[in-house]
């Protein structure tokens, strides 16, 4: 259900508040302020702050502009021409969240349990998650790919990776 700002002709036109943008912008501004403070705290000499100080200040100023742009009283014409804030299709949202979670898992698990196993599991999981149903493809593609990747990185490129099962590498 689209979440359009309410259209009232009378004076009590509601403010359109772009909450996600405000949250994100605030997070950005928070980081910028923290970073500026951290740098200042480490060393307030010119060498340290010559870029960070002016740029951070500019960033915080911009933050206010962004916020101002997110909270406004839209004119009638604006309301009618602005597309309603799109909510994502639930299935797509789940796919995206799941993909992100699996990427995080790969990144964390890879060095711990070995990239051979982690790659295989990740590829299998992602492909299944994204809709692949053919069992042969689900099993063999990740298998071949994991082996190929470990071999290429380990042998050809001389950058051995932590592995669990794939002996003969390191």
């Amino acid at each position: 259900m689209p979440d359009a700002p309410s259209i009232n002709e009378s004076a009590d036109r509601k403010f359109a508040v772009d909450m996600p943008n405000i949250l994100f912008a605030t997070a950005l501004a928070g980081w910028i302020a923290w970073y500026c403070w951290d740098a200042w705290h480490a060393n307030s000499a010119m060498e340290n702050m010559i870029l960070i100080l002016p740029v951070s200040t500019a960033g915080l100023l911009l933050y206010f502009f962004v916020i101002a742009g997110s909270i406004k009283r839209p004119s009638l014409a604006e309301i009618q021409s602005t597309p309603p804030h799109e909510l994502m299709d639930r299935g797509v949202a789940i796919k995206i969240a799941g993909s992100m979670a699996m990427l995080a898992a790969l990144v964390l698990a890879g060095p711990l349990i070995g990239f051979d196993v982690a790659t295989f599991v990740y590829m299998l999981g992602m492909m299944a998650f994204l809709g692949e149903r053919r069992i042969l493809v689900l099993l063999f593609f990740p298998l071949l790919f994991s082996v190929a990747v470990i071999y290429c990185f380990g042998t050809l490129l001389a950058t051995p990776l932590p592995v669990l099962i794939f002996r003969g590498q390191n």
Partner: protein
Amino acid sequence: MLDLHALIAALHLLGSSWQPWAVVIPGILIGLLIHSVPGLTTSMALAICLPLIPYMNFLQALIFMTAMYAGSVFGVAIPAILLNVPGSAAAVGTTFDGFPMAKAGKHNEALGLALVASCFGQVVVYLLLLGLAGPIGAFALKLGPPEMLVLSLWGVTLIGTLSGRHLSRGLLAGVLGLLLGTVGVSARGVPRGTFGIDLLLDGIPVVPAIVGLFAAAELFNLVGREYIVDNLAQRQVKAIRILAGMREAFRHKTVMLRGAILGSCIGIIPGGHAIANLLSYSEARRVAKDPEKFGTGDPRGVLAAETANASSEGGSMATLLALGIPTGGATAVMLVAFSMQNITGGPSFMRDHADIVYAVILANLAQVAVLAVVGFAFIFAAGFVVKVRLRLLVPTILTLAVIGSYALSHDIAGPITLAVFAIIGWIMHKLDYPVQAAVVGLLLGRGAEGNLLRTYQMSGGNFGFLLTRPIAIVMFILLVASTTLPLVRSMRTAARKGKLKWNEEHS
């Protein structure tokens, strides 16, 4: 300026034996292969190349290395166009128009454009080097932090033009990128923004961050789609369409020439190679009569970025070839190749080995032809990527990117950066913050801070110092002119239109 004696000796060297030529194709292939796979980087290509150098003589070693770099120049454009993952920081500009073309089914044409641009850029720069290597080298030495600062400023102005619908969000994204680029140990030796994590002391790993911002964010969005190119009929690799793209390139000769010359000049400046493609893109967009087309799949965008990328790579070789002085990055490694052959750098290099220098330049000109052929064949192989279902492609690319970033630093800094920036990038994408502005900021951050600092230090705090840097002043004037002239022009046009309208209404 052309040392004819050395030139003839060079021709003799190249013409009298097959040996120098034997390394061209392997070099190009290594450069192409490594750089067209997301997650693999130049240092991996070097890990393959360097152990082979002791088996070659000096001329072969130089040609081999420059062939590898020539291949890399085009190689990085391939994933940039097909997957929106730049093969290196130097291909970021190519993604701006390259990936939209791929999404619209014009991947063949885009790749053809990039191939011609890469070849053209290299021809221009090496012709310049052939005639002017000595003067270029001497000129390069006069360039220092103030000139590099103006270059960084120029890059910063690009951020403004990448802002999309909301200028303030674009600038904020650029600010974020700039600050993230400065994270790490400062010139005073104190760490900033590192949370006490040792792995961040050298800064946020740039390539994983860029890959995360661009690729993962885009790929997450593609999760709802089946293929990169939805239309089955367009999802082909067709030689005819590649050739069409190549022909199209020649319809924009001015764009290519401007990009090549700009790239050559910027490449000479230390640190310029990485951002030459961005600056050229920004200039091409600025002088265009219809700038709003850039970013939607305009061939001129691809051409401007790629010619500058190619020519700047040659430009960065200028000081090395002319003076034997490396200015960082690729040239430092070339110096290693020298030392493996027991040759030291230094100005005596050009004096004592002028024939070899000319031979390398001529060989590079010749190998452009080889690149065109090998590159064309390579496009066929690479182009099949669009035929692969996204549910196989997305995990493959992401895995390669993760493993590649781990292999680079052998610690989890790379992969974690990738994942974190993937999520940030996706959020930015959803909320209309231009990821490209953040990337440009990230690429510029460290250099901008360093050169700003050094300029300040060299000046001792007084502005009069700037008067002793005529080159920087000229560059700055050019920068101001190129930024404000389009504004003036559009104001004039608007004023003229307004006047006409007034005349109409009152006559």
